[in-house]
C-alpha cells in the first residue's frame, strides 16, 4: 500500500501535474501569511517586560530556525529514500531543499545576532546553541558544494546523500544543546509540554511559522521543477547529439 502511494509520484510527469498548480497556491498563501504575521507582530503586539520592542524579531528568528533545521531533516529523509528505495524524485527534492535551507539557517544566525546585541550585550558567543547552529549552516554549504560537484544536472550523487544522512546528527544536537550544556541562549520556549510565550506573541508566531513554511514549500517545488526541466533538456540534448 505505502509502496504504491510512494511510487505513484515516482513518475516526474505525475509529480509535475500536481506541483505546477500547487506552487502558486503555496507561494501566495505563504507571502500573505508571512506579511500578515510580520505586520501583526511588529505593530500589534505589546512590548515585552524586559526586552521591550526587540522581542519582535522573534517573528522572523523562530521560523528561520525551524526551517533551517526542518530543511536538513528533509534532506536526510530524502537521502534515505534515495539510497534505499532509489526513488527518482528523492535526490531532486534533497538538492532543492539545500539552498533555501541554507538561506533560512543564515537568516536565523543573522537575526539572532541582531537580537543578541541589545538583549544579551553581545553579537555572538560560542555557546552550544549558537555554535551548533553555525555548524548547520556550514553543513548546508558543504552539501551544496558536494552535490553540485558530484552530480549530473538535477540528480544527486550517493556521496551527497550519505553526507545528508550523516549531517542529520547535528539536528538533535542543536535541539538539545540548551538542555545538555549551560548556554547563553535560553531554553526552549515551545515544547511538547506547552509554551512559555504569552498568547499575545504566540498566535502571530504560529501564523508566521506557517507562512514561512508555505513559502519554503513553494521555493522547494520551484527548484524541483527547475531541476526536472534541466534533466529533460539534458536528456533531449543527448538524444539529439546521438542522431
Amino acid at each position, binding site marked *: 500500500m505505502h509502496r504504491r502511494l510512494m511510487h505513484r509520484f515516482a513518475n516526474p510527469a505525475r509529480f509535475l501535474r500536481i506541483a505546477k498548480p500547487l506552487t502558486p497556491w503555496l507561494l501566495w498563501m505563504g507571502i500573505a501569511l508571512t506579511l500578515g504575521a510580520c505586520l501583526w507582530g511588529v505593530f500589534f503586539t505589546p512590548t515585552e517586560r524586559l526586552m521591550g520592542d526587540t522581542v519582535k524579531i522573534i517573528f522572523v528568528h523562530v521560523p528561520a530556525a525551524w526551517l533551517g533545521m526542518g530543511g536538513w531533516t528533509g534532506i536526510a529523509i530524502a537521502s534515505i529514500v534515495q*539510497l*534505499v528505495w532509489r526513488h527518482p524524485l528523492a535526490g531532486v527534492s534533497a538538492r532543492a531543499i539545500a539552498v533555501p535551507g541554507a538561506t533560512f539557517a543564515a537568516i536565523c544566525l543573522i537575526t539572532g545576532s541582531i537580537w543578541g546585541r541589545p538583549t*544579551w550585550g553581545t553579537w555572538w558567543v560560542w555557546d552550544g546553541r549558537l555554535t551548533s547552529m553555525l555548524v548547520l549552516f556550514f553543513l548546508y554549504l558543504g552539501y551544496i558544494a558536494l552535490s553540485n560537484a558530484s552530480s549530473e544536472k538535477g540528480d544527486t550523487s550517493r556521496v551527497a546523500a550519505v553526507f545528508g544522512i550523516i549531517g542529520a546528527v547535528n539536528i538533535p544536537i542543536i535541539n538539545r544543546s540548551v538542555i545538555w550544556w549551560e548556554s547563553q541562549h535560553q531554553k526552549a520556549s515551545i515544547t511538547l509540554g506547552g509554551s512559555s510565550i504569552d498568547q499575545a506573541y504566540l498566535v502571530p508566531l504560529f501564523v508566521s511559522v506557517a507562512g514561512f513554511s508555505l513559502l519554503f514549500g513553494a521555493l522547494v517545488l520551484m527548484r524541483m521543477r527547475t531541476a526536472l526541466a534541466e534533466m529533460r533538456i539534458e536528456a533531449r540534448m543527448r538524444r539529439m547529439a546521438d542522431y
Partner: protein
Amino acid sequence: MKPKHQRLLLAVIAVFALIGAGLIAAAALREEASYFYTPTTLASANVAPGKAIRLGGMVQKGSIVRAPDGVSIIFTVQDKDKTQKVAYRGITPDLFVEGSGVVADGRLGADGIFIADSLLAKHDENYVPKELADIDMNSAEHTKDTLSK
C-alpha cells in the same frame, strides 16, 4: 533478501550507529561544552584563583550593591543550591536586573569573590507583555526555573 531490503537494513544500522555516536560524543562533552560554571558546579570544580572562567546564574534578589563611584557593583549569583559573590566595574547590560540571568567573564579572586571583566545578560524562555507583568522593569519574576539541574 532482496537488494532493497539489504539497503534498508544497512540504512537502519547506519542511522542507529550515527545516533549512538552522537549521543556518546554529546555525553563526553557534557562538562566541556558548557558555556559557564554555575555556583554549584564552580564549588565542586576546584578552579584555581586567577584562571579565566565564566560564571552564570540568576542575580539574587536584593543583592546588587552599587558603590559610591557609580560604576562598581557587587552582587550575588545563585542557582538552586549555591551562591557566588561577584564584583564588577563597568556599565551593566540593559537586561541586567535582579531575578534575571547573567553570564560573567572573569576569574576567582583569592578571597573567593568572582571578579568579572564583562557581564552578559541572559534572558529566560518566558515572553511576557509588559502590562501583564505586575512588576517594575528592575526586577524580573520567573514562573519557570531557567537553570538546569
